[in-house]
């Protein structure tokens, strides 16, 4: 998943569609994100490449909408509803995910196990 800034990224992604849960006035997705181009990427425990400033899923509420949809801790979010998430600030990512008028978010995520699975299948 290493990438060179400015170059296209190739990654195996999974589509995940999360239906937000309404709790009172809030719509919740049930996960938390870390990372962003304004954050210190070396502190990201999930990235393989410690210069990766992407947005990562840091926590997932058990039984919450995100978990139900298959999102997992450590997933790297590539896109949200078509918007790129690999070069955004933390806050931009948060806002993109929490639009109040969107009840559903469609994510493209990648994770190491996906990459590995594909590599393995290509090798064998």
């Amino acid at each position, binding site marked *: 998943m290493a990438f060179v800034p400015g170059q296209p990224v190739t990654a195996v992604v999974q589509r995940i569609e999360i239906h937000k849960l309404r709790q009172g006035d809030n719509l919740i*997705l049930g996960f938390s*994100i870390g990372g962003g181009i304004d*954050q210190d990427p070396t*502190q*990201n425990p999930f990235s393989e490449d410690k210069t990766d400033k992407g947005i990562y899923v840091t926590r997932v509420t*058990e039984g919450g909408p995100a978990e139900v949809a298959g999102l*997992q801790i450590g997933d790297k979010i590539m896109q949200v509803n078509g918007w790129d998430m690999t070069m955004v600030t*933390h806050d931009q990512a948060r806002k993109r995910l929490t639009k109040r008028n969107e009840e559903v978010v469609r994510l493209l995520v990648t994770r190491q196990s996906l990459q590995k699975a594909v590599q393995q299948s290509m090798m064998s």
Partner: protein
Amino acid sequence: MDDYDIRSAASILASVKEQEARFERLTRALEEERRNVSLQLERASQPDRLSICNIGNGQPLATAWQQLVLQMKDLACTSDSPVHEQSPSNQTSIAMMQEPQEMVEETVTVEEDPGTPTSHVSIVTSEDGTTRRTETKVTKMVKTVTTRTVRQVPLGPDGLPAMDGSSPMGSYTDSIDRRYLKNGERYITPQASSTLTRSYNSYNDSYPESHEGQYRPYLGHDGYGDLSDNYGSLSRGVGYRPRYAYVPGSAYRPDDGSFTLPSRRDNYGPVAQPQVPVGSNADLNRSQPERFQPEPYGLEDDNRSLGVDDEGYELDPDYSTVNRRTSAGVPERGRPHKGRGYEEPMEPEMVEERIPYLHGGYAAPLAQPERGSMASIDRLGKRSPSIDSIRKDPRWRDPDLPEVIAMLSHPIDPVKSNAAAYLQHLCYENDKIKKDVRHLKGIPILVGLLDHPKPEVHRKACGALRNISYGKDNENKVAIKNCDGIPALIRLLRKTNDMEVRELITGTLWNLSSYEPLKMVIINHGLQTLTNEVIIPHSGWESEPNEDSKPRDAEWTTVFKNTSGCLRNVSSDGAEARRRLRECDGLVDALLHALQSAVGKKDTDNKSVENCVCIMRNLSYHVHKEVPGADKYQELDAGQTTGTGGSQKKKKDDAGCFGGKKAKEEWFNQGKKNGDLDRNFDTLDLPKRSEAAKGFELLYQPDVVRLYLSILTESQNFNTLEAAAGALQNLSAGNWMWSTYIRATVRKERGLPVLVELLQSDSDKVVRAVSIALRNLSMDRRNKDLIGSYAMGELVRNLPSRQQRSAKNLEEDTVVAVLNTIHEIITDSSENARSLIQTQGIQKLVAISKSSQSPRETKAASHILQMIWSYKELRNALQKDGWNKSHFQSVSAALKGSKGPAGRSGYDDSTLPLVEKSQDNEKSGSRDMIPMDELGPDGYSTIDHRDKERKYKSSDPSGDASEKEPLKNDTNRKNINRSNRASVNLVDARDIKPQPVDSWV
């Protein structure tokens, strides 16, 4: 043949009559069934014979039986297999006829007795004097299954299996066998008349749609699950049956008593499901295995009243968990099924699962084919002789590993599940195969099967994963994690209600939790689910108790045991893990409730209790610093002390800047002050609470003291005792208000004698934990006086004497712990020092300090001697006993000498306050300036120091840690400021780095 038939008829009649009396209440339904079945009989198809059984079983009418017999005769004649011959002449024996055709053998092997897990125990102790013991218990989950051997044995005229080539023979796994069957018609040939076997059904019907129909027959047995409640004793009788069967020749004699049960069962099935004709076949099949499980059923019956799948199973260690599971699972599954109308097919595995009861003792079926056949003999009775030869049939072979793994992806579900089950068997205690499975990429496929909708598929996959996850090879665990196995297991746990599957899931998680890097992953994905799905319901705790209902007791189920074991492992992962567990809704409440219930029932020796206490101990570790709002209580404490003691705050700051000595003094003084404070404690009241404590607050409420003391009084389990003492140790170590209360409460609840008595324990680690707990408790001045008068003798007794290394041969860690405790007790108390002299302690101490092989023991002993000599008022008495100054001082001088050059002041280190420790340079600098003599006593003067340092100890709390670990610490410390975790090899990233920004969305 006719002879036999006649005899059969006679005996059938006899047994039918007997049954008639017993099952009168079923008569009506049976009648109806009989009609159905008779119709089928007329059609003279194979299945009929089976249905005959049904009729016969329970059929009260003699005529019906005659009719049946006739039918059977016809069948026998037309078909080449003279089944009757071998059948003992009653209904059940008819059922037996099928057996030769398909024998499902399953051997259950227990990987390890759950009682004897391989545990890697690492005790981490820590700064507080608190121990965290991580026991990594690799669960031995058991497992499984194993061999499922399906044999097709056509019967010869003599009742022995026919050896002609048309019958497939040999032992194969289900899937394979079935495959072959499908293709070869031999299946149908000789046995056609004899009976339908399971495989036959499966493959004649179109897959998989026909599944349901095909399995319906099992319902009869499900019904049995219910019946067994009433007839448990009967079923036990049945168990003896196989033995008679072996008797050659005479084997045919009716054995009525034993055969009655199966018939009953068979009846019951049809009642529930009269319209299913094919069903009866399967019924027969199933009745076979069931006959042999009487004991488990008996057990179950006994326990049933306690609840489904209760701990009762644990009563009988001979049953492997699988057995227990099965017996537990059957009724559960059975009941819903009837109601639900079979949407979920009862799988063939049901049959297999039951069989294990027979063979629980076989360890490695595959490796020992002969034994396998013996097993079959057990069941089959006479047919056995030919089985060995059958096995040798060269045309069949076992599939190799790649083939099995390929079968996991087979489009047909039963093939998948059989392949997984076979894999589970292969992996059992075979690290090489596990590794091969990993290299062949089998693990991701198995994980993928966890999401399979069919229960038999995910169950078997889970079983395989459990065996794979067991063992020292952490790569396997990592492989499961890397393909997202942990979230998949958790998902399945939420989805399934099948107790067996839940046991498998939690067992797998327990195994996984033994590997450090996976602990946080498990917490992240599963903590709340495990708590909500298992811990809370099985603990009996209710967050909003119903006023009317009395509180429920905990159920020590296997699921609970596994889950608590898993949480016990993850609770040792460090500050973050502890925080997550403490803050997990309902977890602490439920664990405490479970423990209280254990104490109430005087059932404190089991593994589940041990796990719970260990979790509690781990969560109590550092509770005084890690709990939200802890500051508040610290301040209160500090405020009180400032009243007497002066400007502590300022001193603390100084400690940071100037290093050891001042800080040390400060801590020392504070300790004294605390002592003073405690002296007055009896006039203090425990804080009044406006509302009941809940969640993590419960960890340190003085109420828990009584719980731990009860456990310490009652339990015979050394691990539990150690953990309970460790919990008290942790709770009494802190410097906050609650620790003060805890120390006083232990005294008020008369806990000191309990602890002192445990110093006599045969278990090293119990002695150690108790000794350290006493040391912490003696921070309370009154406790110190009491412990000095009453515990000194026991403490000294635990020290090695000149002749033996120790009266009990205690480990070095323990001896050091005892020495440090003695040191603590005589500090500031010449009275206690005097009682040390009176208990002849000096002699032992001098011996240790002069001649012990262990430098740690030597140091600890010499510190005590120095302390004693410092009480001038005691010198006279000492000199009278023949001791002189050299006995008390020389050692320390020697120590100093040896220590100086190497700069190995590690020991001192650990006694320094925490603050300093984080600053290496200063620390070493200050250290140099501190003369040894001063350090010795001071080091221990307050528990706080100890606490802070203790974490470095791997096995034990107090003193040892201080001595043992410093070197390592030094190196660590340079890089890492301060780790909250105990053991050196733990990854500490979480603790040192500031948390990155993290937003919930």
